[in-house]
């Protein structure tokens, strides 16, 4: 994947960002080819969520560049990045809790595509189809997450950023969501998976980076590292900067 003619769907060049005066992500560079998938691991507070927010524009990079599909979007607003093909499922739940399931799906849908979107969502997650009129905030955590993840299908994105979609869910629900994501990946959508369940994240991804305190501690192919190496990178006992290009 090192050849220059690979189409990069997402690229970060030396991105630094944070909240106000507090820098969280420091000088981070990585690339994601079209249809590729990347697992982003690391202890809490490492800057994974900040990294995703900087990609989607909810946070503006204080320095560096963000490119989506070759287009520099560093100064673009979030809704413009969404139009450029980016889809970000945030954590906690990316839904509007006070709206019904149907209303959530209407908002997720492209203009005029509401009924098609509802059909697609019901096909992917039958459980949602049965609950269209329910207020989203009153559903169980797993169902809320399904609703949030449905957006990655409805919006027809080129790249999907997933922030801890398995958080707090029972294993059978996590299974259901990850099966869906694997199918999505097979259709050629690129994924960035921020995940606490390392095995699941590795199984879904081609490559992996471990972030700690805002910088990349470890990176390479997903099948390259064992559990121990990744845990060491978490706990800070790994050799710094052991890396290959992603």
């Amino acid at each position, binding site marked *: 994947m090192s050849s220059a003619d690979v189409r990069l769907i997402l690229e970060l060049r030396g991105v*630094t960002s944070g909240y106000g*005066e507090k*820098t969280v992500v*420091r*000088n981070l560079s990585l690339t994601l080819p079209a249809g590729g998938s990347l697992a982003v691991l690391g202890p809490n507070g490492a800057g994974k969520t900040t990294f995703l927010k900087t990609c*989607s*524009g*909810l946070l503006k990079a204080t320095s560096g560049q963000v490119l989506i599909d070759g287009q520099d979007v560093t100064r673009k*607003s*979030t*809704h413009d990045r*969404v*139009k450029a093909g980016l*889809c*970000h499922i*945030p954590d906690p739940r*990316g*839904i*509007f*809790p*006070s*709206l019904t399931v149907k*209303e*959530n799906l*209407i*908002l*997720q849908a*492209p*203009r005029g595509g*509401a009924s098609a979107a509802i059909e697609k969502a019901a096909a992917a997650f039958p459980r949602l189809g049965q609950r269209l009129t329910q207020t989203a905030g009153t559903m169980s955590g797993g169902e809320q997450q399904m609703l949030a993840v449905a*957006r990655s299908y409805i*919006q027809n994105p080129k790249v999907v950023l997933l922030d801890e979609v398995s958080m707090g869910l029972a294993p059978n629900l996590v299974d259901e969501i990850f099966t869906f994501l694997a199918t999505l990946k097979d259709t050629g959508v690129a994924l960035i998976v921020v995940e606490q369940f390392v095995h699941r994240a590795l199984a879904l991804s081609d490559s992996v980076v471990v972030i700690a305190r*805002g*910088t990349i501690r470890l990176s390479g192919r997903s099948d390259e590292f064992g559990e121990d190496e990744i845990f060491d990178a978490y706990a800070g006992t790994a050799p710094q900067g052991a890396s290959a290009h992603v």
Partner: protein
Amino acid sequence: MDVWLPFIVVGITAGAVYGLAGVGLVLTYRTSGVFNFAHGALATAGAYLFFELWVKNDVPWFLAAVISVLIVGVLFGFVLERVARRLAKAAPSVIVVATVGLLLIIQGITSKRYGAETITIDSFLPTETFEVSVNVGYNQLIIVLVGIVIAVGLGLLLSRTRIGIAMRGVVDDSDLMELTGLDGAAVRRLAWMIGGSVAVISGILLAPIVGLDPIRLTYLVVQAFGAAAIGRFRSLPWTFVGGLIIGVVAAIGQKLESEHTSLAGLPSSVPFFALFGVLLLVGKRGLPTAAPVRRQQPEHFAPLPLPIRAGAGIALGVVVIFLPNLVDARLAVYTSACGLAIMFLSLSLLVKMSAQVSLCHAAFVAVGAVAFSRLSTEANLPWFLALLGAGLITVPLGLIVALPAVRLAGIYLALATFAFGLLMENLIYRKSFMFPQGGTRDAPRPDIPGVGLANDKQYFYVAVAILAAVIVLVLILQRSRLGRLLRALADSPLALSTYGTGTTTTLMLLFAISAFFAGIAGGVIAVGNGAAGPGGLGSLQSLLWVAVIAITGMNLVRSSILAALALVVLPSYLADLDADYQAIGFGVLAILASLITASGFDPVTWIKDNLAGSSRVGTKGPIPQRGADAGWRRASSSRKAPAPAREEAPELAMSGGDR
């Protein structure tokens, strides 16, 4: 039953308008987080424009209404969204000041152009009646129908259309709205335009009923507040129903009022009961949560060198001593400025020192004035004792207002205190123990031993002396333990209570002290005016005061004196400047001041960083900037050994990261 029906018809008609106004208010509040105190002023502006077009320029009424809605509703909505965007994360007092600024501008312009008197305008709707066991006017029917149609239409818009759903969703999560590919700002802009338009429609509908009057129409916002409170600042249908309830209850109250004089003022107090009651009963947990707040940093000017300060003090003293000879006939203006300065000091304790909001300070002053008058004329207390008593009698009022301050925060506290002020004005002021029939009470001057009653000049010196005493007390308070607790409370109530301070007590003490000084101010002002009267102590006056104090800086004493001078002395020198221009000026300044505050721009820091490079003010040592971490930690952390010299620090410095 037949006796009641006509009142109920009137109530439903008015209630439909209140409900509409409330719906517009809630729509904008829920989508932007900015509570618009100028919502009624928008209605005023729209109604006057309608009057201008229809009555003065013979534009057909329907066309006039459409033009008014488009110009005032849509245009203002567009502008307001841009302002609101900058205010969304500002402190509630900043939001109050900005929207009150707009209110002052609209009120100033309309009363300048059309005068302060009520203009009666004919109903543009047919006034013939039909009978359903009671006479109902077609205009009444149409107003109610318009109200219902708009409320239902908005309901459908919000439940059925994508953009309407987005308006409801943007409240949950503005970031997520962006992630779904919708422009959050565009969604909010539309909400402001709709909210503004609905306000204008309610103003136009109300104008033939109550007449055109800059004050009275602005008060429509109060009915809207009440309706919004019944809808818990959340639900549009319940807000509309709330408007109807307020309209009907007020109309029934009107009938009762005409039969029982003891109920005077009750009907106009209904919305305030609703507002105050709902706020207190529901508490902050049951209301939509406010956005996190960024607080304005107070100035930290280094004191000037002692000789300069002493010189300035002496010069000021000399000026004050000779002032009566310099200003001749204007002396009375300076005397009342002294009283106002005391009031501003009392207000600053709340607004500036402790980051609380009080929009009922005029009520404190009014109670102080009456208490002073009755203590000196009826109880025959010596003058100074009566003044002290006026302060003490106002203290319980302060404690009552402290209750919402304990239970509520932010904009809801502002609303609760505003409602309290209105309640006082409408229900209590006209009681026989306050100002019977809106009349005044005597406020005698002090007896100077050996001279007799003080003349103008002597009373001026008395007022200055009292002001000086209050300043000294405020300075002592600022440096005392309670002062530190209050400043800490303003920054982080959470930290303060975690470290062991009972913040309820602190708030109670604060409001008690503030009310005490406001009561004293009431006495001093009343004596200056020669009588204690309700004039100039309405609830809108409290709003003006908060707006004025916001634009004169952060230093308690200096800003209070400046505010008093700007409010009464300055206009007396500008012969052309009438009250309307003054209001417009304050309004513009208030909006600018709040935008600057909300932007996080700190002029003092800016001056320090950019202009005063060599002469660092505020701190003796260098001010460590964020990001420049080198040298902040020392080698040893033993309690016994004093810290090593600064030069050693860099060796053990922690780097600030990859900055």
